[in-house]
């Protein structure tokens, strides 16, 4: 596997360096941490929004730091949750006294590390609330299991919670809005080819020449089944049908996110979106806004995911709000 690297153990460090250098006008790095924060953080009178997770999902989450979205993103090693001390630094860097909301994707490691950070922050007198995103319909949801994973739908949580926080809402209100998004967003992905974690040096999983994994997770975790490669319309139909079966979208308006996982050309993503729009049209579901591109990648994985967010007036207004985030300017 060919990769553009200097050294595998400096990947995250050098990426962060390059990122803040490229976007020095809008973000800063909290010294000696893996925290990327808004340049003007903490923003006085505003609830702080902190997310993060393993790296390898760029532009998530550093690309969503900016006015109207996140106040900070905490970055871990590739596909590994950041540690509690780092998350704590992110919380401290963004708390202006109005409290901090943690947006966590539902993975065992992420939840534990962010939980510990929240406990440490509370011990320092900072009010912290958290929401856990679990939009992946490929995984069975049950109180007896780890539950559904958080994937690309998380970007909508950042956008809407960000807009609500920017409007001066309280921590409880921002949390309620984030919870509403989580309740109304569903996603599912498919992989055609694996990715390779730099330090591991070999592919995370292997698919046969003509095989795809339906329901893939963003770290290459298994999905629902491996099936022979089908046409774009057929694969898209499978994903959309599973999403639509999960909550009732009848007569609703939705935001659509067709997300490339790292190595799928935009050309193909638009072919996917064409079918998504056709299917939603047939069901009488109105598309309010669409995003097609790379928003939550898995290194160089070939594949894509589809996310549908069911909207109401509050969510529409928040979705339309201004955003300066590097990867989500609006």
């Amino acid at each position, binding site marked *: 596997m060919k990769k553009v690297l200097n050294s595998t153990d400096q990947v995250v460090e050098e990426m962060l360096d390059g990122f803040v250098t490229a976007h020095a006008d809008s973000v800063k790095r909290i010294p000696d941490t893996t925290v990327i924060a808004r340049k003007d953080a903490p923003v006085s009178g505003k609830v702080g929004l902190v997310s993060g997770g393993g790296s390898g999902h760029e532009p998530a989450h550093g690309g969503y730091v900016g006015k109207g979205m996140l106040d900070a993103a905490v970055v871990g090693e590739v596909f590994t949750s950041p*540690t509690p*001390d780092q998350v704590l630094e992110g919380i401290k860097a963004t708390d202006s006294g109005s409290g901090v909301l943690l947006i966590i994707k539902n993975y065992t*490691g992420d939840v*534990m590390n962010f939980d510990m950070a929240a406990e440490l922050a509370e011990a320092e007198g900072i009010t912290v609330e958290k929401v856990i995103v679990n939009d992946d319909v490929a995984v069975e949801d049950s109180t007896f299991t780890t539950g559904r994973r958080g994937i690309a739908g998380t970007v909508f949580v950042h956008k809407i919670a960000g807009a609500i926080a920017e409007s001066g809402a309280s921590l409880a209100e921002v949390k309620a809005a984030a919870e509403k998004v989580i309740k109304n967003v569903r996603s599912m992905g498919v992989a055609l080819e694996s990715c390779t974690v730099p330090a*591991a040096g070999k592919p995370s999983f292997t698919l046969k020449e003509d095989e795809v994994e339906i329901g893939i997770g963003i770290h290459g975790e298994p999905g629902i089944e491996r099936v022979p490669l089908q046409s774009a319309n057929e694969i898209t139909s499978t994903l959309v049908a599973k999403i639509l079966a999960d909550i009732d979208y009848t007569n609703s308006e939705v935001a659509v996110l067709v997300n490339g996982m790292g190595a799928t050309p935009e050309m193909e993503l638009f072919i996917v979106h064409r079918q998504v729009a056709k299917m939603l049209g047939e069901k009488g579901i109105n598309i309010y806004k669409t995003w097609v591109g790379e928003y939550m990648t898995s290194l160089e994985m070939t594949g894509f995911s589809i996310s549908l967010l069911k909207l109401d007036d509050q969510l529409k207004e928040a979705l339309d709000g201004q955003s300066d985030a590097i990867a989500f300017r609006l």
Partner: protein
Amino acid sequence: MIILTVEQTIQWMKEIHKRMEVNKEQLTTLDQAIGDGDHGINMERGFAEVVDKINNTDYDTVADVLKSAAMTLTAKVGGASGPLYGTAFLKMATALQDKEVNQQNFKVAIDEALEGIKMRGKAEFGEKTMYDVWYQAAAFLDSEKVEDWQELIEACQATIEDTRALIATKGRASYLKERAIGHVDPGSMSSFYMFEALVSVLELEV
């Protein structure tokens, strides 16, 4: 009667590190089968940092050594293992604060660690996680007076074998459902090495 001194606790951490170093590949291979394939790497790195930290610090109490280990593991291991082991050692440290480590106090410390793992990982017994091994170790310490610490190793070993047959319902292995059957849980295995290391330093209460 004291079964674990400051010196022995330091030795315990070094013995754990030795085992993580020797079994790094094995833990990583187990994790590749049912997880994300970095458990051996993370645990070896974490305990190398722990040994480095305790080599450069002076300690007066067993609790302080355990607290150092907890903080280092939490900050350096990452993933789920960091907070889980960090919480376990922190709970032990808190339970042993200002106490000498006799069998009774040590049992309470292991019980507290077990509760910590349960709280952090939201795990129950029989879900194919490290909790199973700690649960058995705590159950073993419930027996009145330990005559031979080797029996603790045997109790943990039996649990490891039991996890092989289970479907995981917590942690990353849970996504595999029945594909996880036949594989030993990597976290159970690393916990086993910790107890094996412990037995190599513990004194018998006479």
